């Protein structure tokens, strides 16, 4: 291993201490030390998050918003404080712009339903060829329900968004919404959100960014980007499952009809007619994921305690190192070579099916994903049925990458 990698990685947030925060990393799998390289699917949880959730349930829990008693008020405060935290995390203009959802998928469905319902047949929703199903299927369902057009912007062969094609797609002025990933969960590509937004706005379109992957790796500033909608998902952010976030400009949220109906999202209810609560509550029907929201707060605090400078430096170093190491494995081909990229690396190997790669790695304790990564149309574009994918978190070490590369070389040896 290259000494400079060790140095930069270790400088970045003292890796050893970070790893000590994640109890699961000391587990064994098939008798081997767990090497967890599937953080892009879902990240592991630090003890700060685990303890926060357990402590909440042990000492400070009650249903929120309607209770007049101490436990309920304190729990409400803890829950609503996370809204402030998320607003700061994403650079939102106001806490009211933060809506809690189950995950990114629900956040996008919320927009497809409530904002999408305001669109007229003939208007266009524009996605890209590299979207996760979560940012494709809801728009297909909207198309099939309402007659809006769904348009696809291609990617270039190296896996970047084709900006010329984007411009062409925007040219007729019919695009109402551009819904595009901020970082691909397959290719690792980081899209040029600023440029996309500027072009879309110039063409009169709003922009939703799917930040499910990006927000884990880079600081997001929705105001600086000029975005209209932004979604993130807690479980990839080292937080609990069951909690995600939709951020949207306040005036958009205010113009949108509610999504789910029930308690807490209303102002008044009568059999004839109900009126809605103010944003963001209009979009949070029923008892929310209280404990998970509070746990998300602990996860964001944990991330902030390391800082995106350190996180970014660590991941850039790791990614560069991994691209080199994997590039040296015989028969291995990295899929996605856009210049702007994060710590998600897809690859195929000549003569070895990705599923065999995943199983053989697993037998050595190494967890990677293999399959279509919820991006079937992208697989078709790439001309593969599946890839293997290694993805990195704040706890990933260069030693783990060495082990991955070495084991892949051995696997390859089996098959030739």
């Amino acid at each position: 291993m290259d000494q400079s990698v060790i140095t930069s990685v270790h400088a970045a947030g003292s890796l050893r201490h970070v790893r000590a925060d994640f109890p699961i990393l000391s587990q064994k799998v098939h008798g081997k030390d767990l090497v967890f390289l599937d953080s892009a699917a879902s990240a592991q949880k630090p003890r700060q998050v685990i303890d926060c959730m357990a402590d909440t349930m042990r000492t400070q829990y009650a249903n929120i918003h309607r209770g007049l008693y101490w436990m309920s008020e304190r729990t409400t405060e803890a829950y609503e404080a996370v809204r402030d935290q998320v607003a700061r995390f994403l650079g939102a203009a106001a806490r009211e712009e933060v809506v809690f959802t189950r995950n990114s998928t629900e956040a996008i469905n919320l927009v497809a339903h409530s904002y999408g319902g305001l669109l007229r047949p003939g208007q266009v929703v524009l996605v890209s060829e590299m979207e996760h199903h979560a940012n494709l299927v809801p728009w297909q369902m909207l198309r099939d329900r309402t007659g809006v057009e769904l348009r696809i912007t291609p990617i270039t062969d190296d896996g970047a968004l084709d900006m010329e094609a984007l411009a062409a797609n925007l040219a007729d002025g019919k695009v109402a919404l551009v819904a595009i990933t901020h970082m691909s969960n397959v290719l690792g590509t980081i899209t040029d959100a600023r440029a996309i937004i500027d072009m879309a706005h110039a063409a009169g379109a709003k922009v939703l960014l799917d930040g499910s992957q990006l927000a884990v790796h880079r600081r997001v500033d929705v105001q600086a980007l000029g975005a209209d909608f932004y979604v993130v998902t807690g479980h990839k952010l080292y937080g609990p499952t069951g909690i995600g976030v939709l951020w949207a400009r306040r005036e958009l949220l205010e113009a949108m009809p509610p999504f789910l109906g029930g308690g807490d999202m209303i102002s008044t209810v009568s059999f004839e007619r109900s009126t809605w609560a103010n944003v963001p509550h209009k979009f949070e029907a029923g008892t929310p994921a209280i404990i998970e929201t509070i746990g998300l707060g602990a996860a964001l605090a944990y991330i902030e305690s390391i800082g995106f400078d350190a996180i970014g430096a660590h991941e850039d170093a790791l990614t560069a190192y991994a691209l080199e190491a994997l590039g040296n494995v015989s028969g291995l081909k990295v899929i996605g070579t856009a210049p702007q990229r994060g710590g998600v690396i897809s690859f195929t190997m000549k003569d070895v099916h990705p599923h065999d790669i995943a199983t053989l790695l697993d037998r050595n304790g190494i967890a990677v994903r293999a399959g279509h990564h919820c991006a079937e149309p992208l697989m078709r574009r790439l001309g593969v049925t599946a890839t293997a994918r290694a993805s990195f978190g704040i706890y990933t070490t260069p030693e783990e990458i060495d082990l991955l590369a070495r084991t892949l070389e051995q696997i390859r040896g089996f098959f030739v």
Partner: protein
Amino acid sequence: MAQDDLYRTVVLERAKAPRHAGPLPTATLNGQGSNPLCGDRVQLHAVLDGQGRIEAIRHETRGCAICAASADLMAGRVTGQNRTRVNRLHAELVEAVETGTAPEGLGELAAFAPLHQHRSRRRCALLPWSALIDMLNDDKDR
């Protein structure tokens, strides 16, 4: 990493150099099975004799090593066997991948017993078999 007990020599060999792969121009039975999740697909071609035994069978498999080896080992193993025997072998293979212990008489198919630790891959080994059973059942129903 030493020789892996799931990806044994027999599995790797059959995946790399199958003995029963390819079309079968004389086939009177054709069947297929696929797993959309991973894109695995097995096509089967066979001829039965007068007693309903498999006289000849060939497979065309696109998929992972487990699936390809399983198809090839299956083709070798079921030649000369009837439906009842096929069903019995299938049941024994299922037992092996679920318990990790191969019933006696499973022979080379015992290679798949370690799949018991890899639940999500069991389907790869079983896909050729369910395609075969479907094909034989379809024939009987006709």
